[in-house]
């Protein structure tokens, strides 16, 4: 059986605006057979997406393919004309992009987009293509497959859109499927269904697939072979089992080390905490918040939590659960509807403008997206200098030496002072972000998904830095994340949010041990593990699939988790708010079920 795609000695060059061309992919060879999934792994800038796109003889603007051969079903793509290549794209090779939300046209119905490439290439009449699309929806476990085609993209969830991307790519039965980080933007719970749908589809249609990602645990579930890339070169190639169990190359080993162990397998000796609630920096008391002017859409309801001095409180939940809103309310960016926030016992005003400078200094916030969190028109010196001037009252000379110290603290060279954010990498920008928060010498830093936009390796470095700063400076964090294993790796306390409500909270050890809230259990079971049979096991257990893609509503009565819960009790869970049960000191679970039944 010959390879569907055979890329040999690929070389791609890129140029920065106005600059010269320099190589970004050098001598990479990839070949994929029918029914096989080959994963390209590496951090951003490693050339993995560039390599994958070249399988369609496509290069991004500013890039050009300068060497090698790309054979798709035996034809060398580089010898084809532009028009001939266009004929191949979408028909013989299809592409699934990272963000389905931005890959779908919001103004066109889903069905017309899914069958677009089939219709463009005149493969079958429109009606037949639509009929086939419905079959595809069923195979992908999409709900209401009959009506789906006539919906618009905003009417379905992110996980469903991602599966629809797969339907779109597969509609013309291509022999090669290119998947570019298709689950990176999804919650862990959604990721499972999307992954298993992709896997079934690829095996079912005997398609060759190139899977681009930086997440080794995901790759372990779906890939047959792995190609590890760094700086445009292949570091290591091998079967998935080989690479995961015996990585040879040092870079592969670094990647493996950056994968956090799933929280279940951690040990918790000695981490049980003495409840030092007496000295809390921030105490949030039944906080309710929402958006909208006249009729508020409530996204956060009755949330209470404590951040003790020098501790890390992890807030975990999926997208849309209100965790970022929590940070914004505490930072004074969004006035709450009701509830109080106490800072050392003092009731805080609801907007930053009305708070005292001392309060503002003590609570700093670090945002998720490093690209938009720093002003692109300010040099690093101005970015860090402003809080020093405002909160610390330093004059120009003192500021200068303090900026040097801060850069050293976040492990950046002092020469970065004169740079603009555009001259920094994502990880470096996030360090500047952190340094700006540290400049105020705060007691508490609100970290809103600070590692989600970063690669595994870079993200791990940021977490390590946060830990070091906590030890050295005694700063406390409210660490907001959707990634349970990241939270588990360094939080002292954990708050589990679902649909804007706290469903479970307590010390890390108590939350990660039974009794579990059913949602916590679902989260724990959804974190991918670094072994090849994990996904099959989870899918076989059938606990996840039935409950996916449900929306989260902050206004509803009863238990918010009711419609996804496997052990929900009809007429109780959906009618009454769940009672708060205290499992041990400081560990509470909001559930109608008895604690004993939550232990198993």
């Amino acid at each position, binding site marked *: 059986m010959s390879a569907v795609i055979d890329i040999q000695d690929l070389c791609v060059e890129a140029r920065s*605006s106005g600059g010269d061309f320099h190589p970004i992919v050098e001598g990479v060879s990839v070949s994929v057979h029918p029914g096989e999934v080959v994963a390209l792994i590496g951090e951003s800038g490693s050339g993995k997406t560039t390599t994958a796109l070249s399988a369609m003889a496509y290069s991004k603007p500013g890039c050009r393919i300068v060497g090698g051969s790309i054979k798709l079903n035996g034809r060398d793509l580089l010898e084809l004309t532009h028009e001939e290549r266009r004929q191949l794209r979408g028909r013989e090779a299809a592409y699934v992009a990272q963000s389905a939300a931005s890959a779908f046209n919001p103004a066109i119905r889903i069905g017309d987009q899914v069958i677009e490439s089939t219709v463009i290439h005149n493969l079958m009449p429109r009606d037949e293509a639509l009929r086939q699309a419905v079959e595809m929806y069923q195979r992908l476990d999409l709900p209401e497959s009959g009506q789906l085609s006539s919906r618009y993209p905003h009417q379905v969830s992110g996980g469903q859109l991602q599966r629809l991307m797969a339907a779109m790519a597969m509609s013309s039965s291509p022999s090669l499927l290119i998947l570019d980080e298709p689950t990176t933007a999804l919650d862990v719970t959604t990721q499972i269904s999307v992954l298993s749908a992709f896997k079934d589809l690829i095996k079912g249609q005997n398609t060759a697939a190139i899977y681009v990602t930086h997440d080794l645990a995901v790759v372990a579930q779906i890939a047959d072979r792995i190609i590890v890339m760094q700086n445009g070169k292949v570091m290591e190639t091998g079967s998935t089992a080989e690479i995961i169990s015996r990585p040879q190359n040092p870079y592969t080993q670094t990647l493996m080390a950056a994968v956090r162990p799933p929280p279940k397998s951690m040990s918790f000796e000695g981490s049980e905490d003495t409840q030092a609630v007496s000295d809390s920096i921030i105490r949030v008391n039944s906080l309710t918040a929402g958006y909208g002017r006249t009729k508020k859409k409530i996204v956060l309801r009755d949330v209470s939590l404590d951040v003790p001095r020098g501790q890390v409180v992890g807030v975990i939940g999926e997208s849309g659960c209100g965790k970022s809103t929590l940070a914004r309310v505490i930072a004074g960016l969004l006035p709450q509807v009701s509830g109080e926030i106490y800072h050392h016992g003092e009731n805080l005003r609801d907007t930053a403008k009305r*708070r005292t400078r001392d309060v503002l200094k003590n609570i700093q916030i670090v945002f998720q997206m490093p690209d938009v969190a720093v002003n692109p028109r300010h040099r690093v010196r101005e970015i860090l200098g402003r809080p020093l001037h405002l909160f610390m009252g330093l004059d120009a000379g003192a500021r200068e030496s303090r900026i040097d110290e801060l850069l050293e603290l976040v492990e950046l060279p002092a020469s970065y002072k004169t740079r603009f954010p555009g001259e920094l990498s994502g990880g470096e920008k996030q360090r500047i972000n952190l340094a700006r928060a540290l400049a105020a010498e705060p007691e508490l830093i609100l970290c809103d998904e600070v590692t989600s936009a970063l690669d595994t390796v870079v993200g791990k470095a940021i977490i390590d830095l946060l830990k070091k700063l906590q030890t050295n400076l005694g700063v406390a964090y409210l660490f907001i994340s959707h990634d349970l294993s990241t939270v588990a790796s360094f939080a002292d306390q954990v708050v589990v949010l679902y649909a804007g409500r706290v469903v479970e909270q307590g010390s890390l050890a108590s939350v990660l041990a039974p009794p579990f809230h059913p949602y916590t259990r679902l989260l724990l079971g959804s974190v991918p593990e670094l072994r090849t049979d994990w996904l099959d096991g989870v899918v076989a257990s059938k606990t996840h699939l039935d409950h996916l893609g449900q929306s989260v509503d902050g206004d509803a009565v009863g238990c918010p988790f009711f419609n996804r819960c496997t052990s929900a009790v009809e007429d109780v869970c959906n009618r009454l708010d769940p009672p708060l049960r205290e499992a041990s000191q400081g560990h509470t679970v909001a559930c109608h079920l008895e604690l004993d039944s939550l232990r198993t």
Partner: protein
Amino acid sequence: MSVRSQAPSEPASKSNLTPSFVVGLVIVGFWLLVALFGPALAPHLESDIVTDMSYAPAGEVGLLGSDYLGRDVFSRLLYGARMTMGLALLAALLSFSLGVILGFTAAISGRWIDGFMSRVNDALMAFPSVILALIVMSALGTSLMIMIVTVAVIDSTRVFRLSRALAMDISVMDFVDVARSRGESLWWITVREILPNTLAPLTAEFGIRFTFAILFISALSFLGLGVQPPAADWGVMVKENLQGLLFGSAAALMPAAAVASLTVGVNLIVDWFLRRMGGDVAQELMN
């Protein structure tokens, strides 16, 4: 719109000089020089009647012939450059300052103020600009001052729309939230966080507004509302000599060509500037 991260220290500007930009630069530079030194170089005064022959052909009287009163078209063209460009620059500067200040104010103010300002702006924009100017100037008079202010106010509605939209885009960025959580004043946020990020598109807009002001003032002068005779303005010159077209005179075509070339020149520069800011992505996508 996303904030494109740019590295201003990059030595990129030199290699980016495109032929069209150089052409634009030459045209605009030429007219600027004419505006500065034209009256000194002109063989006659703008109001001098040098011949009793109306619409004398080019070459016979002066370089470009004479106009309907027998004045030297070449001299008047040189004088007109200063008048036309000076008025347009003043009007553009005024409309720009007005539009940006009001637009930013609307963007950072509450819903009510923004709503009120935007609706008033919409109402102003709903009138055809020349008609609106006609009404205002026939009520207030036809002095140069009144014309400049009228043109500026009418043109500022376009600047208002753009700068409000730009400021709104930037004001939801995380770095603005960081500034707010620091308790910064509205003034600081506007001037230090938002303004620097809107400068590129605003500069490009300034070029466009400048050419619009030229055309607008020329149109008003043509209608007899702007620059009054015997002062030379390109728009006035077109109007005065329109009848000459019947006799095959180029007296009306010369100033029209001057307006056209200046407009094209400024737009070439603006295009280059916009492309430099936006990167040449769109072009490369086509290949």
